[in-house]
């Protein structure tokens, strides 16, 4: 597989740039000097990256110098600390507010910057979309910034060169140009292939190409010399400069502009940036005939389409879970990858908090209906496995049940729709019972006229039906109808389902129209801006082939990806941490995206590129200027005009306001969401309902999902994400075909054996991974894998299932499954998953059905009331039998003898609430980013050597046909009597006076005895030197506050000791001898969207962690009673762990028991 970035970059400085190379003997002295300099910059193949990086700046500067033909001072980007800038203390990190978009989700961020280098992403507590937390994507985006395989400069297969010759010697100039260009390609070939023959061929091909198809441009320079320039289409892309790119692209836009953009298509990803959308609107005005194509599998197009159907163009729908008592997630992974998942996870968690059994009635209840067990399904109280195709029927059944048996009243205008609602075929018993029980539950809580049901609260409570993005608009329409019936759809807060109106919508067209336009030649010029249609588009459209028909294909992306490799011009995009921008969350919260670092490579933002594609009015004429507009001014100018519009020109954007926006990460004072409204137009859904058809012939259903790690591919070259275990299957570095055990038996496949999947005419083979909880007639596939030529990380990882997709808006299809040929090694970090906390069903240890392992402890609300001490039931030894090793010691005889006294002012401890953990994985990546945890690769993961300091253990419980999953974050427990400490022969791991189990990497000789003796298996060993030969760009991601470990030492969770020490130093400087509660936040705690992790000082009875862990507030923590749900894992070993867990309480519907 070719890796264009990795191999050919080495010759990047030999740019056949228009005007950059002078080769004739009588060229001017400036050109001569430049040519000599350029020759010196040639890096032969295999030159080190370090040297390469070092040369980047120089080459960029030289390129600029050549293009203008006069000397220009290169931009100074270094910051000499001769005078220390204000507010900047070397070594002390600074935080800047910014924001990031993931699909339809916007998160406000605070990014930690060490001496100008972003090292950690945190949530902005003021931003509604993140509320101080972030998701796994925001965490991993940091590594994407430092991806050395990112595209570094424009590339093109159109290569060109020019030379000067004395006046009148045009033929000489042409000859010299030919020679010059062919020599460049010749030298390049030598560097790439190391073969003289290949280079000679390249030279010959070049000469032939100039002869047959070279495009000549000739002219006269100001001093009268002749200029001859030639362009040819070369057989591979070659690095070039922005000037060169604009020099070729802009001239082609003029004619397009003249014809109103006939034949032009702008392919964009879904964006929530007001300024970028404003530019898109300007684009539409400038090119009224052009098409703006939306190509973004992560963008919620079904949800938007449904919202626009019911509320008119520009309508958007979003949910709010504050105080919602019954949440029905219909194929909606709102705790995983669906829209607003961070905010919703936090709001969801508020309804799941409970202290004692008396809070059980206040607990919200989550119903989940889905074909594939997701994080949301694992968090469910009641879960129904249902094929995605049947979900419209389930919703229809729910509407009918509510109308017929509970007196549900239809919202006005929906009668026509309601009359058409019917279910298809028969439900099985479980689904029937589910619908009846769910309708009764919803009616009891939310229907105003319904009689209070015995045992349920009589007061009307808030309920919400959430339909996931994977479902078609019809399902969303049914969801809107149900929410309207249940009074969940309201205009203002506290409405659980709200609608907003966007004024700045752009009329997008779909991929099908785009593909047909390319096919019939009505689209000839394609500009892909931050989108990758060659990979992301449904395979049936065959866009990778059709795109090649375009006369001009420009691609801008962070990687030279599948589309970039086809493009005539590939332009590198900046990372969001390098670019100016703005983002508006679905609920209207708006942030300015400010860069934390100057672009590492020669990149531009989408906004900057789009601005270049727009003509500028100069006098009476529209011109395309090669002068670039900086993103900062584009964004600021946009907001200046916004503020002027909003205030009817009475106010302008002051610097003070702008600075406050940047500081807070929030745009305040501008009403940007003018209209909130209710769903009122039901007719489109009636039409959809009437036209509904299901392919009953194909027996199986194939589901596509956004991958919870790499989404649709935006994180596939991110090693943190590849190595992150999938939340449920724990697969790393691959995707698989998730099927149930029953289906595996039916088809006759096992884990790792290929499954042949056929939809229509598309067929491919994907290895099977048995996923309990999957519906028996369905298979689930995730997008984002099987990338080609994007980078070494993503190469060879998984399978590109886009090939099977038929339509970008359809996430499931009927198809056929059969046993494929061959096997593929899938790697999961958790080989064994079965365990049975309640012991009802027996653990799957085959014939040896052992007593259950009391590791994960859970009960139901009713069970909690019956036995408030349920969490203590699993202990093999009662606490009074667990004697401290020093308990026999008589302190009156010798108070100090042998007794380890923890003399520190603090005693650190952690509580993890299993009721709140939704396995979003954010803590795992946050820990990786904070603590410089190494990536080991698929092979080493397969060897069981992954390095994560915190992992999320997943166990399945219950019966095989209706399993539940429980998830448990496990890091070092910091045992007070740590088994690891006494076995280390060199005392490399020892206890701190504050109760931390510290690891002295320098002292460790690597006997690994500690790891053997750790009952929680949280210690990780550096089997190799994983940090050897790290690319200098990747090295920048390392946190300077944490050691980078060498081969042969053990490492493990330190409770973020670097953060503890920073807080202690600050307290000390502040004149305090103790750190206040909340001043130390561990990385996992900080990132957690549900606040499942509480960390702090347990010696302080009033600290949050003490309150979570203990029932009373005695000053001595060892004498306090544990809180109701609090328990320790394996405390029977007398390890006395400092990390304790709060047992899970599910809230199932008693009628479904």
């Amino acid at each position, binding site marked *: 597989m070719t890796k264009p970035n990795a191999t050919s970059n080495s010759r990047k400085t030999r740019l056949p740039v228009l005007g950059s190379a002078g080769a004739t003997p009588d060229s001017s002295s400036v050109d001569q000097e430049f040519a000599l300099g350029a020759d010196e910059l040639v890096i032969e193949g295999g030159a080190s990256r370090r040297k390469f990086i070092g040369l980047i700046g120089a080459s960029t500067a030289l390129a600029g110098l050549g293009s203008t033909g006069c000397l220009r001072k290169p931009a100074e980007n270094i910051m000499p600390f001769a005078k220390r800038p204000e507010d900047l203390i070397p070594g002390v990190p600074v935080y800047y507010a910014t924001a990031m978009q993931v699909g339809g989700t916007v998160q406000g961020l605070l990014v930690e910057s060490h001496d100008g280098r972003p090292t950690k992403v945190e949530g902005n507590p003021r931003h509604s979309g993140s509320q101080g937390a972030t998701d796994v994507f925001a965490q991993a985006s940091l590594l994407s910034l430092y991806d050395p395989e990112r595209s570094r400069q424009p590339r093109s297969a159109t290569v060109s060169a020019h030379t000067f010759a004395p006046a009148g010697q045009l033929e000489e100039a042409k000859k010299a140009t030919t020679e010059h260009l062919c020599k460049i390609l010749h030298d390049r070939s030598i560097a790439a292939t190391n073969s003289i023959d290949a280079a000679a061929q390249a030279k010959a091909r070049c000469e032939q190409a100039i002869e047959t198809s070279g495009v000549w441009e000739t002219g006269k320079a100001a001093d009268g010399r002749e200029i001859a320039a030639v362009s040819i289409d070369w057989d591979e892309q070659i690095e070039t400069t922005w000037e060169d790119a604009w020099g070729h692209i802009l001239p082609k836009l003029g004619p397009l502009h003249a014809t109103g953009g006939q034949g032009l298509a702008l392919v964009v990803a879904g964006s929530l940036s007001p300024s970028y959308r404003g530019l898109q609107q300007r684009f539409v005005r400038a090119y009224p005939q052009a098409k703006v194509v939306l190509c973004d599998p992560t963008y919620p197009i079904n949800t938007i389409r449904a919202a626009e159907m019911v509320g008119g163009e520009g309508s958007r729908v979003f949910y709010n879970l504050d105080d919602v008592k019954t949440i029905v997630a219909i194929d909606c992974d709102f705790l995983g990858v669906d829209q607003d998942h961070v905010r919703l996870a936090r709001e969801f968690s508020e309804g799941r908090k409970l202290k004692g059994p008396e809070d059980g009635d206040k607990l919200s209840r989550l119903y989940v209906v889905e074909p594939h067990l997701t994080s949301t399904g694992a968090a469910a109280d009641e879960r129904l496995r249902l094929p995605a195709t049947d979900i419209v029927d389930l919703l229809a059944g729910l509407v009918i049940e509510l109308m017929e048996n509970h007196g549900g009243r239809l919202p006005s205008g929906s009668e026509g729709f309601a009359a058409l609602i019917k279910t298809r075929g028969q439900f099985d018993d479980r689904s029937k019972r589910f619908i009846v029980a769910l309708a009764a539950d919803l009616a009891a809580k939310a229907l105003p006229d319904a009689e209070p049901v015995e045992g349920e609260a009589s007061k009307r409570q808030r309920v919400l039906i959430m339909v996931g993005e994977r479902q078609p608009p019809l399902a969303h329409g049914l969801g809107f109808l149900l929410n309207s019936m249940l009074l969940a759809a309201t205009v203002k807060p506290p409405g659980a389902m709200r609608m907003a109106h966007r004024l700045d919508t752009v009329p997008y067209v779909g991929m099908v129209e785009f593909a047909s336009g390319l096919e019939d030649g009505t689209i000839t010029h394609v500009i892909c801006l931050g989108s990758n249609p060659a990979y992301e588009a449904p395979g049936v459209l065959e866009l990778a082939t059709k795109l090649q028909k375009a006369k001009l294909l420009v691609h801008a992306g962070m990687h030279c990806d599948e589309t970039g490799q086809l493009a005539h011009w590939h332009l590198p995009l900046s990372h969001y941490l390098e670019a100016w921008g703005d983002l508006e969350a679905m609920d209207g919260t708006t942030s300015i995206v400010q860069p934390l670092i100057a672009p590492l490579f020669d990149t531009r933002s989408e906004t900057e590129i789009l601005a270049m594609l727009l003509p500028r009015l100069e006098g009476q004429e529209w011109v395309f200027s090669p002068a670039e507009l900086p993103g900062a001014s584009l964004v600021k100018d946009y907001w200046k005009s916004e503020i002027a519009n909003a205030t009817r020109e009475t106010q302008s954007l002051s610097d003070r306001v702008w600075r406050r926006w940047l500081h807070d990460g929030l745009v305040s004072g501008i009403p940007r969401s003018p209209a909130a409204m209710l769903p009122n137009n039901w007719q489109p859904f009636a039409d959809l309902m009437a036209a509904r058809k299901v392919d009953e012939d194909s027996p199986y259903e194939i589901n596509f999902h956004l991958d919870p790690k790499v989404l649709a591919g935006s994180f596939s070259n991110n090693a943190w994400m590849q190595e992150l275990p999938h939340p449920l299957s724990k697969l790393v570095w691959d995707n698989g075909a998730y099927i149930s055990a029953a289906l595996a038996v039916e088809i006759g496949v096992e884990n790792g054996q290929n499954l042949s999947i056929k939809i229509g005419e598309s067929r491919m083979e994907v290895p099977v991974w048995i996923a309990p909880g999957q519906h028996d007639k369905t298979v689930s596939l995730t997008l984002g894998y099987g990338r080609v030529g994007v980078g070494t990380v993503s190469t060879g990882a998984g399978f590109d299932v886009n090939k099977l997709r038929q339509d970008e808006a359809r996430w499931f299809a009927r198809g056929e499954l059969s046993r494929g040929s061959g096997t593929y090694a899938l790697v999961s970090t*958790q*080989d*064994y*998953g*079965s*365990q049975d906390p309640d012991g009802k069903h027996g653990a799957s*240890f085959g*014939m*040896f059905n*052992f*007593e259950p*392992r009391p*590791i994960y402890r859970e009960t139901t609300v009713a069970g909690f009331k019956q036995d408030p001490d349920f969490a203590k039931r699993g202990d*093999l030894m009662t606490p009074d039998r667990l004697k401290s090793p020093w308990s026999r010691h008589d302190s009156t005889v010798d108070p100090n003898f042998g007794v380890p006294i923890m003399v520190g002012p603090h005693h650190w401890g952690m509580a993890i609430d299993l009721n709140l953990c939704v396995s979003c994985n954010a803590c795992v990546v946050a820990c990786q980013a904070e603590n410089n945890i190494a990536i080991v690769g698929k092979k*080493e993961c397969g*060897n*069981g*050597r*992954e390095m994560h300091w915190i*992992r999320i*253990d*997943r*166990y399945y419980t219950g019966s095989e046909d209706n399993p539940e999953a429980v998830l*448990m974050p*496990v890091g070092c427990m910091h045992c007070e009597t740590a*088994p690891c400490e*006494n*076995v*280390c*022969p*060199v*005392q490399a791991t020892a206890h701190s006076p504050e109760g931390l189990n510290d690891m002295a990497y320098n*002292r*460790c*000789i*690597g*006997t*690994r*005895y500690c*790891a*053997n*003796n750790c*009952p*929680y*298996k949280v210690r*990780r*060993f*550096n*089997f*190799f*030197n994983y940090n050897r030969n790290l690319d200098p760009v990747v090295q920048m991601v390392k946190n300077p506050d944490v050691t980078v470990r*060498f*081969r*042969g*030492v*053990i490492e493990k969770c330190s409770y973020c000791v670097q953060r503890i020490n920073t807080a202690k130093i600050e307290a000390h400087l502040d004149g305090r001898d103790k750190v206040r509660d909340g001043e130390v936040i561990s990385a996992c705690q900080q990132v957690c969207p549900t606040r499942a992790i509480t960390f702090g000082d347990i010696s302080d009875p009033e600290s949050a962690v003490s309150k979570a862990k203990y029932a009373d507030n005695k000053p001595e923590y060892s004498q306090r009673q544990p809180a109701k749900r609090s328990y320790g*894992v*394996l405390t029977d*070993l007398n390890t006395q762990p400092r990390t304790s867990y709060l047992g899970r309480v599910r809230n199932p519907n008693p009628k479904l028991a």
Partner: protein
Amino acid sequence: MAIQERDQLDPIRGRKLLVDGGPSYHDITEAVCKPVEQPGLAWWLAFLPSLAVLGIYGVSVFWLLWEGVGIWGLNNPIDWGFAIVNFVFWVGIGHAGTLISAILFLFRQQWRTAVNRSAEAMTIFAVICALQFPTFHTGRPWLIWWSLPLPNQMQMWPNFRSPLLWDVFAVSTYFTVSLLFWYVGLIPDLATMRDRATTKARRIAYGILSLGWRGSTRHWQHYEKAYLLLAGLATPLVLSVHTIVSFDFAVSQLPGWHTTIFPPYFVAGAIFSGFAMVLTLLIPIRKWYGLEHIITIKHLENMAKIILLTGTMVGYAYAMEFFIAWYSGNPYETFAFVNRAFGPYYWAYWIMVTCNVVTPQFVWIKSIRRSPAALFVLSIFVNIGMWFERFVITVTSLARDFLPSSWDYYSPTIWDFGMLIGSFGLFFTLFCLFIRYLPMIAIAEIKSVLPHANPHFSDRKDGGH
């Protein structure tokens, strides 16, 4: 080989003769010195392959130091693999020598004289092999000296609570005492070699090593005293070394390791494997070098009986582990043992049981225990079984412990096998060098058990001479 049903009796003591064929003192000297002075083709046939296998060891160690222990099949739950298995295996082998030389000496078991020298050499070489593994298995072997209590300005001190540190002391003490004991016993024979030396180099080398031994009565008196004292010193070490090695496991809290039966069980197992290795070595050697009259069937038979005894003890321990695991009522403990026998490593467990419990029972049959060929095969089985015992203890316990989420499977790599096989190269190379340069039988001692060494030899009724 025909089986001797009846042994000849010592005319004086009336007990079985320890040396067959009634050789004279000179015959003994000649017989023992011959392999050293005229090494035959057999020696080269043994030495060169050993050296080749030692080469495998060298390559494996080089690659290990270059790349790190990641080249082995270790993973997160299974942090100890072949290296620790090999360590315990070799330390166990190293038990027979000192047991034979020290404990049997104190108990006046005179049959030990024929085998003690080579058994002690075996001990020393086995311990050398054993010491390789804890060193090289560490992540940073170049810092292994940090486990020694060396005073330093940083006040870094080893952790005396760690069984690994006890190991360092126990094994190094054992090695030192065994080496001294062996060397002291060698002195009179080294003097014999010196006196018989035909080349200057040999004369000087043996001369220096024999410390000026002239065989005077005073020399003998000091020698006997020193030997006795060292025997007394070495005796507790035989028991302590493997007890402490077993603490590496027993002191931890892993189900399957955390077992009080380990010390006696390990010692019994060590003696078991040590005697098996003595048989493995001596049965071919006595044949090749014509020493069957000195290392007689009676010697082999005695050792086979010890193998039977210790093998049965080991079998008892296996059964008792299961009983206690069940009796404790601890689900983790119970699971660990059932998992051993029926889990993914069941094959290792049943190899172990077959080799260690079933095989020794054949020793009950007289024709087998008096057949060198049968005993040789049997000893190989015991060696294999005892290696697997350590594998079963180390790997199966680690592979599936408390949290099922961390369970994994251990698959050794080619480098694991390289180190295992290579260590045999090291062992056999050293042993070949021993045969080549040192008398493999204690000449002076064997002479002392001949009938005519008995002061009452000339008092016999038949007159004698």
